[in-house]
């Protein structure tokens, strides 16, 4: 299980053309194994977030090849990509993006509505178990806008997990959190890897956070310059 590849990028290039041609990603190749906790760091503007959105299939404007779960997702149709994201990728962003009109529980269940793999009761049960795991089950019935920032981020993690994805992709997941909540989120991530065997890819500029992950990819000017201290 440990050495199975969850995600593989093969020489990915990406350029912006506005206002002038500018290469954001240059020849990015790496793999993430199952159960691996990987962080990408680098200075602002080095292309780390852009890379994450390419890897997450949200951004399809790149060259090179991307494989998720050993299947190429390059050049797939929009709705096929949508179901890949739905089933295999969980997202945690800096902002929580919870739907204020829904309760915490419904928010967690939301990606499950799309995948339709479980009945509503099962889904609700799964969502509640996840919330329990993250220690926020007592918030389940509350409306999403009535809980604190740290709690919102934990709900967002639960939402990312509801479809039992292969890989969790996080863009500055602790960017808006204080030290205590950052620690909680980190512990949750570690726990997810240990008990669910998820892969986690975190883009962060929080060096302390990155140092605690299993592997750190350092980017500069659109290239990977180091991986866990190994200079390319």
């Amino acid at each position, binding site marked *: 299980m440990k050495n199975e590849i969850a995600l593989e990028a093969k020489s990915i290039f990406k350029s912006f053309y506005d206002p002038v041609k500018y290469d954001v990603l240059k020849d990015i190749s790496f793999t993430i194994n199952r159960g691996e906790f990987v962080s990408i760091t680098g200075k602002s503007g080095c292309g780390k977030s852009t890379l994450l959105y390419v890897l997450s299939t949200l951004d399809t404007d790149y060259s090179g090849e991307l494989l998720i779960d050993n299947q190429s997702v390059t050049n797939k149709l929009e709705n096929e990509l*949508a179901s890949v994201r*739905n089933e295999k*990728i969980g997202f945690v962003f800096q902002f929580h993006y919870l739907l204020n*009109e829904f309760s915490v529980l419904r928010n967690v269940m939301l990606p499950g*509505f*799309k995948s339709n793999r479980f009945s509503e009761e099962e889904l609700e049960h799964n969502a509640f178990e996840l919330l329990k795991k993250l220690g926020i089950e007592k918030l389940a019935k509350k409306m999403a806008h009535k809980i604190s920032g740290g709690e919102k981020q934990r709900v967002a993690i639960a939402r990312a997990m509801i479809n039992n994805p292969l890989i969790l992709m996080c863009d500055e997941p602790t960017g808006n959190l204080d030290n205590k909540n950052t620690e909680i989120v980190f512990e949750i991530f570690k726990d997810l890897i240990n008990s669910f065997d998820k892969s986690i890819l975190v883009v962060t500029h929080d060096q302390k956070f990155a140092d605690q992950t299993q592997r750190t990819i350092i980017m500069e000017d659109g290239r990977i310059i180091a991986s866990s201290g190994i200079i390319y």
Partner: protein
Amino acid sequence: MKNKHIFEIAWALLMSRSKQTLVAAIGVTFSVAFFISLLGFMEGINKLLDGFFLNRTPHIRLFNDVKPSANQPIDMDSTYSGYHNFLSSIKPAQARKEIYNVESIIKKLNSDNRVYGVASKVTAQAFYNLGNIELNGIINGIDVIQEAKLFNFSDYVFEGNFVDLNNKQNSIILGQGVADKILAKKNDLIQITTINGEQFSLKVIGFFQSGNAEIDKVQSYVSLGTCQKLLGKPSSYINDIQIKLNDMSLAPAIAKEYEQLFKIDAEDMQTTNAQFETGSSARTIISYAVGIVLLIVAGFGIYNILNMMIYEKMDTIAILKATGFSNADVKKIFVTISLSIGLGGALAGALVGLFFSGIIDLIPFNSRAAPRIDTYPVDYGIQYYSIAVSFAVITTYFAGWFPARKASSVDPVEIIRGK
């Protein structure tokens, strides 16, 4: 993706902008309500006006017209048969106004299953005597029972019972205009002079108001027998057969057929009253146009509100797409929002429309043209309700479709990176 969840998300978005949603729905409600009440009212008026005319107009009239023969002697002469003959100043020959063989014609008509009913009629010219003044008049001898059945004769008779024409000897129902001129009251005896110079006294048993004052100033009604007596003719004398058909639209074809069959002149109502349908349909088209414009305006309201909603709910759209909702799902959600506003507004509008129609129906309306009606006429036909509701739903579908397409093309990366 279950529809139930599409509805759930759509409903949540709706509720988050409940005030604007309500305003948009009220827009649809009023459009539908006005559409329904306007058309119902217009059609009520149309039916009333058409009724004035249709109720009193036979679909086909059989009579002997005064006109020159179509077969002039020169055409029968073999010498000139190959020529084109020009004749001027042809005069019609003295022809009898009465219809030959009335009994067998009526028998034949009654056995035709396209015919709803037949009423025979005798018309006599006469003068109403008022001292030494003589007023022009037309006395219609009618088959009272048939006339009432086919042409709603009873609707136009007031102060008296029309059946008395049959029951009382030498009785007459005077046109309102005539009665006013000769100051006749009910049960008065009036004098009339026929064109042959004979004088008769007739007893007034009621008055007649057709809605057309010109007609009422001239015409009066008596029974067939009385009229034949005025003319000094036998009881077989009939100069007009009025036919009502089951299907009015067949009149021109059947008129032609009867013309051939009975060797008589036949006139269908479509030919003699071409202007009539034009007016009706023009009024209907105008009211439909106004109603549809109202609905389109309401559609723009929905379009506007959905556009605003999309800008406000960019985050929601972005996260839905990031977590795997496809463009089609997002489009469905916004079309559902729009359709719910449309359908909810339209159904409420149907009820409000019914209410408005009810109010119009209560407004007093007194017209000399419509003696039997005292409030505005309204047509409650189900078709206006279904047209209004379905058109409202179609309009809102399109009003929602364009914003929905916009929502589905939102790039989540732009939204998420912008935070």
